[in-house]
Structure formats: structure tokens, C-alpha cells
């Protein structure tokens, strides 16, 4: 998915500059260890600086600026007046709408200190919502107690917060007050870094998930963003020695860092949350991280409202650790209606030996020694496709899943492809979630060939299954009924495999395709005992 990271006003622009710098450092590190992954990160993200004041974005490349309200403000700023900023945005609504159109996810950053951020953050989020985008506003509530603004302007910021709550738009609220600690005073630059690092690193994890939706369902992300309340973004770094697992103490500290982002306003228990673990360690370490986060969530809410969605990049470059986007539990809400266009995914550039060499060479380099290369986030590079051969259908599907240009070209054709189709292999693929998105990319020829291969494997035993109080033959059931049987009944492996095949075919090709299978009658001497065993396993009995 393509992600737009847009700031609004001077304060938001400063944060975006900082996040962009951190992100560029991460991309530079990724470039040394995994150039393809770095390229994908770079291409997935676009940055734009929205402002009413031309001077505050003078240092930003022209293509990354979007000045709003030329007539209203003459590009001289909103005079610290949110109403002027709101009118400026209204004047430039067409340009903003056009900008948002190309992105699936929009992250908005703004502060409530003066005019433009306070006046435009909420209307911008509304415009994004109207276009069915997943919008994640990051709004900074300034501190009047420490004289960043006076109380009147602080109340303007509170008004924005109230608007988000009233419109039931979830957002990340950063409280600048939390940056002032008399117990451990720190310089402003240190505090800003502490605030911005979790956002930049958290976004990296989010980018991974959004650029490859095979691990987390888009519908889950729609649930994550649904309803009113706050989001909390966190990151905890883990840097174990090569080939070793992090120690328990390291896991504890990183999990705690990820969980405890004290700058975010977050007053209710964590509900549906996205947890992304990046690092080359064992699944035992993953389990410990998840267990710790789960335990802290359980401390907050006895009712078990914590619902984590886990994502695990298999080859994520450093800095490693755990990033999370926690959502306050504010009840059960209808999922957001988000437009997730399949053709809007960011393809992974084709593999090249040079990348592999770079990765091997860089593995020995220390992370600190990495010199950031001059990388422009938001730049669009289009490497030429490298011809690739795929020995098996599974390899082809994997290629399509990572948007490999060569694989996509083959997927669009299919009639003349020499890649063999193996029934067992296709059946296994049908059982995976990610194959559904691959299937959408396959041509009609491919789909017909795959279905033909599967049908050739028939006859399928016409098992007896229990639906309600009746015993029904599989050949007489609908796809929906079979789905219920598969999900709600404990079945012997052989029966389950057959049923899953039929459900897969019914889901992807339609119920009519299920009728193309031939069914072999269940041997009479086995039918009674099979039925008995099914009945015995059925939890509805």
C-alpha cells in the first residue's frame, strides 16, 4: 500500500522533518543489509508538507510542499488563527483531495499550538475519511504549563481533540507536558527525539505491514481504526549478538519501552492492537515479547479486551525490536469502510545478486558505522524488470505476492506458460491466506488451468457431515454450510482436507465450480462408523 505522511502547519512540519531524518537513517541501514527491502520502504512512503506560510517550508523541496489558501492568507500564514487556517484549507480542498486520492493510508501530523495545525488537522482527517482512506492523525497537544503556548491556545488544541472524539476518529495524541520532568530534566532536542523515535520506528513497522498485507488482514486494520479513542505508538529496540537470542532482561526492557510510550495520551485498556516484531531470533524470543505485552494488557483490563494482531517480517533490517500500535478499548465498533485497492500495492524490486552481496558484506559492518546515503524519501524509482524464471507454481505465486514484475507478467498471461501445475501443491496453496490476494492477480487462463488441475484429482469421498441436527452428504452442501462445518467442527484430517479444498474452490471460483468435482460414495461398511466419529467430535452434540 502507498502511504502518505503529511504534516500540517509549522509544528507538524518540524516533527515530519525529524521523522523523515530518522526514517532516512533506517532506510540507509536497510540499504546496506537488504537493498530490496530498503527500496520498498522508500517507495511506499511519500511526504508532503501542508502549510499556509510559504516561509516555514522554504527549506522543503518544492515537490514536497503544498501551500494552501493563497487568496485567504497570501501564503503568509494563518495569523495564529485556526479559523483562518480552516478557511484556507477550504479554499484548497480540491488540491488536498487530489493529493489524498493516490494513497491508501494517510498519516497526518500537526500541533495545536497556533493556527494552521489547530485549524486544519480535523478537516484534513475528515477529507481522508470521506475518501475511504485509513487515516492516522498524530496530534500534539502543546504545554501551557511550561509556556509553549498560553492557555487560550491550549484550549484551541483541546477543541481539536473534542472534534476528533465527536467524529469518532481514532488518533495519536502526544502530550508535550509529559516531556517536562523535574525528576530527570533533559534538553529539548533530547525530549523531541524521545517523542519522535517511537513514531518513526513505529511507522516503519506499520509500513511493513501495510506494504505486504499477507500477514494482517486489511479487515483487521479496519477494526483497529474503528470507533473513538486514542492510539499509542511504541518501539523497543533489541540488539542481540549475531545468531543469539536476546536475553530475558533485554526482552523485558524492549517490551516495556514499546508498551510505555508516556508521551501518548492513553487512559483506557488496550484493545485491538498491531504488534510487529523485527529481528533474526528464535520464535521463543517472539513468544516472550508477546507474553509480556499480553500480561501488561491483562493487568489493565480483567475482561480480556486486548486483541493483538501480530506481524513478523522475515528479513527485516536493523534496528530490530518490537513496534506496536495500541488502540484504546472503547467498545465494539463496526469496522471502518476503507478502500484497499489491490493495484495500489508497492512492488518489491526484482532481486539482484548485487543486493545479496551487499547484504552479506554489510552484515559484518557495525550499525553505528553506517553512513546515511543521500536518499530522498518519496522519490519514485522504477528499476527495470529483470527476467526471472519460476520453476514451480508456488515460486510464481510467491513472486506475485511480492509484486515481482516478471511474476506479474506471467500471472497476467498463463495460457502459454510452461510452469507445471501440481495438484498437491495447488491444494496446499489454497489453504493459505496470502494466496487469495495472489489469486486476484491471476488471469482467467490461469484460474481455469488451476481449477482443471484440482478437478482432475477427484473423485472426492462424499463424506457425511453434521449440519444442525441433520447428516448431509458433502456433495449436497453449499459453500457457506461447508465453511461453518470446517470452522465449527473437529474433523479427522482426511475429511478436513477434502472440505477445505471444496471451501477454497467455492470461495475463489464460486459455488458452481464445486459442482464440477466428482464424488465417490462413502463405502457402506464405513459410513456408520465415520458418521459416529464425526458426531462424537462435533462440539454441537
Amino acid at each position: 500500500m502507498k502511504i502518505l505522511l503529511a504534516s500540517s502547519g509549522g509544528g507538524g512540519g518540524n516533527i515530519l522533518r525529524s521523522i523523515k531524518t530518522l526514517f532516512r537513517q533506517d532506510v540507509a541501514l536497510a540499504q546496506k543489509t537488504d537493498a530490496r527491502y530498503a527500496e520498498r520502504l522508500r517507495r511506499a512512503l511519500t511526504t508532503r508538507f501542508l502549510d499556509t506560510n510559504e516561509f516555514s517550508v522554504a527549506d522543503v523541496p518544492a515537490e514536497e510542499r503544498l501551500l494552501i489558501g493563497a487568496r485567504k492568507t497570501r501564503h503568509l500564514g494563518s495569523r495564529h488563527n485556526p479559523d483562518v487556517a480552516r478557511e484556507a484549507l477550504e479554499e484548497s480542498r480540491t488540491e488536498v483531495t487530489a493529493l489524498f486520492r493516490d494513497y491508501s493510508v494517510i498519516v497526518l501530523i500537526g500541533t495545536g499550538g497556533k493556527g494552521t495545525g489547530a485549524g486544519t488537522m480535523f478537516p484534513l482527517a475528515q477529507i481522508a475519511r470521506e475518501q475511504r482512506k485509513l487515516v492516522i492523525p498524530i496530534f500534539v497537544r502543546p504545554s501551557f504549563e511550561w509556556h509553549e503556548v498560553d492557555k487560550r491556545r491550549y484550549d484551541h488544541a483541546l477543541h481539536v481533540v473534542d472534534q476528533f472524539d465527536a467524529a469518532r476518529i481514532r488518533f495519536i495524541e502526544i502530550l508535550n507536558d509529559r516531556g517536562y520532568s523535574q525528576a530527570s530534566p533533559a534538553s529539548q532536542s533530547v525530549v523531541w527525539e524521545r517523542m519522535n523515535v517511537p513514531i518513526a520506528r513505529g511507522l516503519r513497522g506499520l509500513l511493513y505491514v501495510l506494504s505486504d498485507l499477507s500477514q494482517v488482514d486489511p479487515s483487521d486494520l479496519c477494526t483497529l481504526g474503528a470507533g473513538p479513542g486514542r492510539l499509542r505508538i511504541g518501539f523497543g529496540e533489541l540488539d542481540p549478538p549475531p545468531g543469539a537470542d536476546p536475553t530475558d532482561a533485554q526482552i523485558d526492557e524492549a517490551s516495556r519501552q514499546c508498551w510505555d510510550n508516556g508521551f501518548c495520551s492513553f487512559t483506557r485498556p488496550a484493545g485491538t492492537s498491531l504488534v510487529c516484531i523485527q529481528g533474526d531470533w528464535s520464535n521463543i524470543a517472539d513468544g516472550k515479547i508477546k507474553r509480556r505485552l499480553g500480561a501488561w494488557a491483562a493487568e489493565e483490563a480483567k475482561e480480556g479486551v486486548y486483541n493483538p494482531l501480530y506481524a513478523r517480517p522475515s528479513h527485516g533490517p536493523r534496528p530490530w525490536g518490537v513496534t506496536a500500535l495500541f488502540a484504546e478499548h472503547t467498545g465494539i465498533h463496526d469496522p471502518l469502510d476503507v478502500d484497499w485497492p489491490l493495484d495500489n500495492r508497492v512492488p518489491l524490486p526484482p532481486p539482484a545478486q548485487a543486493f545479496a552481496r551487499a547484504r552479506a558484506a554489510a552484515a559484518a559492518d557495525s550499525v553505528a558505522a553506517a553512513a546515511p546515503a543521500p536518499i530522498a524519501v518519496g522519490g519514485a524509482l522504477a528499476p527495470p524488470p529483470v527476467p526471472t524464471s519460476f520453476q514451480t507454481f508456488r515460486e510464481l505465486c510467491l513472486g506475485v505476492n511480492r509484486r515481482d514484475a516478471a511474476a506479474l507478467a506471467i500471472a497476467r498471461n498463463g495460457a502459454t506458460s510452461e510452469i507445471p501445475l501440481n495438484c498437491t501443491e495447488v491444494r496446499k496453496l489454497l489453504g493459505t491466506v496470502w494466496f487469495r490476494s495472489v489469486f486476484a492477480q491471476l488471469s482467467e487462463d490461469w484460474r481455469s488451468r488451476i481449477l482443471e488441475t484440482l478437478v482432475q484429482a477427484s473423485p472426492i469421498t462424499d463424506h457425511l457431515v453434521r449440519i444442525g441436527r441433520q447428516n448431509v452428504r458433502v456433495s449436497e452442501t453449499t459453500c457457506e454450510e461447508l465453511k461453518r462445518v470446517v470452522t465449527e467442527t473437529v474433523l479427522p484430517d482426511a475429511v478436513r482436507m477434502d472440505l477445505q479444498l471444496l471451501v477454497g474452490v467455492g470461495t475463489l471460483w464460486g459455488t458452481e465450480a464445486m459442482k464440477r468435482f466428482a464424488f465417490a460414495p462413502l463405502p457402506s461398511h464405513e459410513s456408520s462408523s465415520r458418521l459416529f466419529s464425526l458426531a462424537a467430535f462435533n462440539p454441537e452434540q
Partner: protein
Amino acid sequence: MTGGVDDVVLWIGLALALALMVSGLHDYVRDRRAPLQRFGERFVYEFARPLVRVRPSEPVVEARLRVRPYRRQVEVLLAPRGGRPYPNLVDHKQNVEYDVERVLRVLEDQRFVAGPLYAQGQWVVVPLYLRVSPKQAGGT
């Protein structure tokens, strides 16, 4: 004997009259205090509501009420809590004045007006006056 009975009746009557007087006085004072006390509590709640809390359950400012029914006045005493700087009249005078106006506006009770703020030790004192009698103000 008759005189003794009369004395007893007299004393009981006196005691009852005294009790009634005390009860009446108590009710009178309570009636005058109640609206002032209630408004003071609402004032503190609204003053503290928008301030950032470390934990949701923790009070965010120190607060006391000084109710003076005979002057139709309640003084709200506010002080920073937990090492925070707000409220004070040294560097936040304008903010506190703005906040008092804001709170009175939000509470929408035209019977109360604020007097000039002053400091008393660590406390910021907000004098609030009732313009009508407490009985008219809704005291029971």
C-alpha cells in the same frame, strides 16, 4: 409535688426549644453553605478537567474550599501538585485569570462573580461571590 412536676415540664420544654433552635440554626447555616459549597466543587472540577494527568485517578491540582456563608462568599484555593507549575500567580497570572473566566463561562451560573485573585503562600485564592441570597440560589 406540683411545683416539682412543673419544673420538669419547664426544663423539658426548654430543652426541646433549645434543640429546635440549634436544629434551626444548623439548617440555616447549611442552607447558606450548600450552594456555595456546590459551586466551589464544580469550579474545581472544571478548572482541573482539561489539565494533563499522569494517572487518570490522581487529582491534578491541590484544592481547598473556604466557605463563608455570612459573606455569601466561597474562596477556592488552588495550588500545583506533584512538582507541576500550574496554577500560580507568579508566571501564570494571565493564564489563571483566563481560566477563571473560562470556568465561569462553562458553569453558566450568572449568580456567581469572581473577585480579584490573590496569592496566599502556595495557594492561588479565587474569591467567588453570590449575588443573590443563598436561599434564592437553591439552598434547601
